[in-house]
């Protein structure tokens, strides 16, 4: 199958997948258990969700390895299973997509605060990313997807680890920005411009933004990103912010509302649009239709 870089080089606009956590919970992920645990015990659930997203039209399907660093797995006493978890998660998605979509291997933050703000050294997180990416790459990932980063040092350590351990694979690196009176910044105070420069310098092939507080702000972030980026830009917004309705928690942005902003994003030059928290196969179907309609016109 044609790789990410080749498709982007041809100017194709791509569609990512949606949320995994909510899908896993609906299929029996035990309360309080790490989402990554499912790869150990019930990989068939991963295959089922991956197929839903491929059928909805996703060009990339994410692996359930966001918390697959030893730092995060240790919170669940699963650090000894790091290798098996990351390997089996990639293999399950690979089986399910069967060449119909790219396997995008997720790497999330370590959850640690780096020196001098916290007690963890950049070398320690680099090592954790090295161990995870080595497995993801050798298990058959088509790209490494570093996401939801707030600290640029941590993000660039992850990008470098990916480039060292899986030099043949493209790396997509996205950070989470919030609105601020002066523009968009991560909680660690990284501006869109700083993020773009740092991630590209570290070797990222695609940069962007994921998570956050919905499509409206994502359009604003994309405007800044596409102005400064020297590589293709990806955005994967949440379906708004979660709201409580009685005992239930709902995300309020409908597939239609999100899809309505797709032409604007594509006009800005965004190369890849997917979803993060609260998005479902229905959201991805709507994004797919909007991207296809725009490409047919273009």
């Amino acid at each position, binding site marked *: 199958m044609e790789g990410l870089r080749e498709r982007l080089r041809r100017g194709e606009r791509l569609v990512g997948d949606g949320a995994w956590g909510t899908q896993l*919970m609906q299929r029996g992920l035990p*309360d*309080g258990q790490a989402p990554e645990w499912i790869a150990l015990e019930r990989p068939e659930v991963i295959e089922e969700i991956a197929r839903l997203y491929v059928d909805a039209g996703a060009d990339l399907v994410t692996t359930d390895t966001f918390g697959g660093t030893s730092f995060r797995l240790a*919170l*669940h006493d699963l650090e000894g299973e790091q290798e098996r978890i990351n390997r089996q998660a990639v293999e399950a998605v690979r089986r399910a997509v069967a060449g119909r979509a790219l396997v995008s291997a997720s790497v999330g933050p370590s*959850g640690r*605060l780096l020196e*001098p*703000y*916290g007690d963890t050294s950049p070398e320690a997180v680099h090592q954790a990313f090295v161990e995870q990416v080595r497995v993801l790459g050798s298990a058959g990932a088509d790209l490494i997807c570093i996401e939801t980063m707030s600290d640029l040092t941590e993000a660039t350590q992850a990008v470098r680890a990916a480039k060292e351990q899986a030099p043949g694979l493209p790396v997509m690196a996205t950070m989470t920005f919030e609105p*601020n*009176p002066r523009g968009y*910044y991560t*909680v*660690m*105070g990284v501006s869109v411009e700083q993020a773009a420069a740092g991630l590209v310098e570290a070797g990222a092939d695609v940069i962007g933004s994921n998570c956050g507080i919905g499509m409206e702000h994502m359009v604003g972030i994309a405007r800044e990103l596409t102005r400064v980026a020297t590589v293709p830009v990806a955005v994967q917004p949440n379906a708004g*912010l*979660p*709201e*409580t309705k009685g*005992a239930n*928690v709902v995300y309020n942005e409908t597939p239609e509302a999100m899809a309505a902003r797709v032409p604007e994003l594509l006009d800005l030059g965004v190369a890849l649009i997917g979803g993060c928290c609260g998005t479902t196969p229905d959201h991805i179907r709507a994004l797919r239709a909007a991207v296809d309609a725009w490409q047919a016109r273009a």
Partner: protein
Amino acid sequence: MDILNQIADSLQKGEDQQVGTLTAEALESGVSAGDVLNKGLIAGMNVVGEQFRLREIFLPDVLLAARAMYAGLELLRPHLAKEGVPLRGKVVIGTIKGDLHDIGKNLVGIMLKGAGFEVIDLGHDVEPEAFVDTAVREGAPLIGMSALLTTTMVRMKEVVALIESRGLSGQIKTIVGGAPLSPEFAREIGADGYASDGATAVERVKALLGVA
């Protein structure tokens, strides 16, 4: 600039060594530990908290200021005890059962300590009973709970219920926070307060405990 202003100023810049040096100097020159704490360290941290609340500065600036605060506080501790200066009150904090996210909760702890509160941090994945038992044992009038997950935030209600069922309503208050929470949610579960971020948490805690 007098030495207390210098301490406040250095703290705002996150200069931990300088805050330590100045704190030692102030104590040596006869300034009371209470004044160093309130007019130096806490005064500086109040400015930092306010700037953070107004989004003029970012989390890293707050973390560095907090580190500087601790550098001074460590030196002050024995002197504060000698002078009989009380800290501002005890607060029990933690991330609710089932939830392992603690960066936001840690930040709230840092800001509360920075404001002079004694913080008992139970960490993450905290059982409802542990919150209440600790508050009772430590004589803490306030429990602060954090959650980052929509699946765990609903459990905060169990802590509020436990306080009620043990007849502790009014004696132990609760404040909640975390990305998926809202003031409406806090009201719904019967929490006494809600804060959207660490700086706001300090203001709400002060108001709930009636301290200036």
